[in-house]
């Protein structure tokens, strides 16, 4: 993994729950929500932090944020994130979500779009694909899942090493448990989300890897069809974890999305 630029950590209390933030860079604030596999800062964050102030949220129950034991769905997390946005008093801000975090970001938009300036959903889950399934790590483990998230096994070795560190394995293991608490069934989709997206006017950029093996492209198409103000960008050659495979390209797309909204 690429070393991350100087990041500052702090906790913010949201409805009595400590939510952990990592902040880096300066400029227009951008809120970043991580994948279901947990918070992992890398080259994407470094790159975007050159021009923006990144506020990377450990979603409640992930990373160093406290587990909300009564949370039963990603929408519950979206409420925490929505309240976090109010607590940060940033005004309408830019929200970026990866995978599962993209689903949470989409839920935030359906309930609190006035808090958002732009929305960037990268390989976002949350919508049931019309064919096939969103890839499920519950029966074959998180290592296979991470491999499926990349365009090839070789890329996995390049990014995480042939033998991932114990810290990484712990992160994936712990994160998978939280994900199982929230979306064991239905697996990674919310039936009503496409309907609710129709009322979201926030300028939205959908970013998908052309080789995404986790969230089918059809989910991107449904996001595109239901969001009134969305466009789709395909990153050629990348898998689901687009920001790990092509961090600079994804950072550039986020900057572009923000610039377009100005």
């Amino acid at each position: 993994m690429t070393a991350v630029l100087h990041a500052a950590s702090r906790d913010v209390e949201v409805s009595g729950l400590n939510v952990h933030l990592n902040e880096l860079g300066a400029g227009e604030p951008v809120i970043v929500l991580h994948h279901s596999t947990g918070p992992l800062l890398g080259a994407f964050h470094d790159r975007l932090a050159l021009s923006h102030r990144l506020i990377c949220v450990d979603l409640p129950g992930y990373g160093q944020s406290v587990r909300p034991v009564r949370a039963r769905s990603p929408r519950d997390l979206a409420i925490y994130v929505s309240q976090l946005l109010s607590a940060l008093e940033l005004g309408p801000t830019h929200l970026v979500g990866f995978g599962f975090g993209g689903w949470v970001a989409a839920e935030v938009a359906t309930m609190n779009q006035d808090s958002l300036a732009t929305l960037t959903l990268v390989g976002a889950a949350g919508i049931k694909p019309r064919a096939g399934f969103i890839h499920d790590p519950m029966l074959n483990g998180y290592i296979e899942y991470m491999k499926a998230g990349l365009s090839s096994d070789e890329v996995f070795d390049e990014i995480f090493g042939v033998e991932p560190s114990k810290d990484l394995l712990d992160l994936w293991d712990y994160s998978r448990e939280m994900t199982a608490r929230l979306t064991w069934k239905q697996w990674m989709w919310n039936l009503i989300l496409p309907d609710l997206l129709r009322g979201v006017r926030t300028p939205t950029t959908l970013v998908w890897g052309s080789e995404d093996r986790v969230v089918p492209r059809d989910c991107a198409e449904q996001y595109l069809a239901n969001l009134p103000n969305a466009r789709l960008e395909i990153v050629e050659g990348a898998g689901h974890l687009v920001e790990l495979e092509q961090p600079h390209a994804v950072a550039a797309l986020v900057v572009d999305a923000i610039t377009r909204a100005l």
Partner: protein
Amino acid sequence: MFIGYFTERPYQDRTADWYKASGVGLLDLTLSNGVIDADVQADLYHRYFDEKLYIEEMGFDGVMLNSHHSTPFCMGGGPMNLEAAVLARITKKLKIILLGNVLPIWDDPMYLVEELAMIDVLSRGRLVSGWVRGTGRESVAHNAQPPYNWERFLEAHDFIKKAWTQDGPFRFEGEHYQYRYVNPWVRPYTKPHPRIWLAGIMSRATIDFAVENRYPYVMLDSKLELTAQVFEYYREKAREHGYQSGPQNLGYMFKICIEETEEKAYETGRKLIEGAGNLFLDGSQGQANPWAQNLPGLNTRKASGYLPTAQYVHNIESRGLNLKGEAIDFTAQAAETPAEHEFRRKQIFDGLLERHAVIVGTPESALKQVRHVLETLRPGNVIFWHGDGDFTHEDTMRGLKLMGERFLPAVREIGRELGLQGAWEADPNGIPLEPADELAAGV
């Protein structure tokens, strides 16, 4: 002493490619049910009921049924309560011990309230309704959310017990289960409710719960010395709760094979861990699927929550913490030559015999080993695990006859000699502590 009988009721098809009684490892949860032959299945269900009738005739006190899902090693998955209902009707005296219904996987435990009450009525009070949390496979088969397994266990237990004991109608609003109108029109024969037992090898929490509720606890095929530690833990917890537990509160299930000669017992006994035997157990030729075994959140992450019998290290490894990012090649563990396979087969089985995980012998020689187990653990309830794996019907019937005629009476005699009273011979609530004992226990 209470003596029960157990078999997993394996799906045996010796003509099938997958049925590798000769050795290649079968990875759990990878075999399609497309291999099931309707006639083979029908014959086996009938066979296992026929054997239960003979079990009763041979003088066993009870029969234990279990419930593993989506697997060839146990034909009593979802149908376990149906099996129990049939047994309730066709047997006369056998206690029907269910160990058990996997509480957390039921989205509608009202079915359990009704089905189990009917089994208790049909059998006129012979039901023992055991509860278990299930292995990962059970959560997989019924898609139950593993992180809430224990919460659902507790809540389903409370609901069922309330529905059995409290006159309806009433309303139940739990976190996981909600009912507007609880008023089932079948009520248990046994008052206040059917006996409840618990079983397991993994979690301290289950024993704590058993002790709090004065439920007998059965250890399933666990290692002898470690089982002794767990039983001592039960006794300690009982003292903390103000009572002296006795043999009637403890049960132990282990494998046994009785034949006329030592040689025959050894050969037949090996079948217990072969064929479609339980994949989780030491010596099995199959392999449990580690990811499915330890679904996220199914088991506690704290080492202190595990019993000595749980093999915590294996649990952690199977969640992948020590894996090197490489898929495990289970089939690589199969022997390459028949000679190597035979060598391994003998080595594994001999190891099991050495530590009394399996007892084989003539009625007389096996008795000495059983005495050792009983003296070590002092359970009032023993369940002999027999007729499993690659056992034929003839193997089972021959063993049952020998047990009934020349073995069980002698086991009972040992039980009397050691003061091992079973669950129906002594108060399952244990004995209240004397004041001095209470002081020592810090009550």
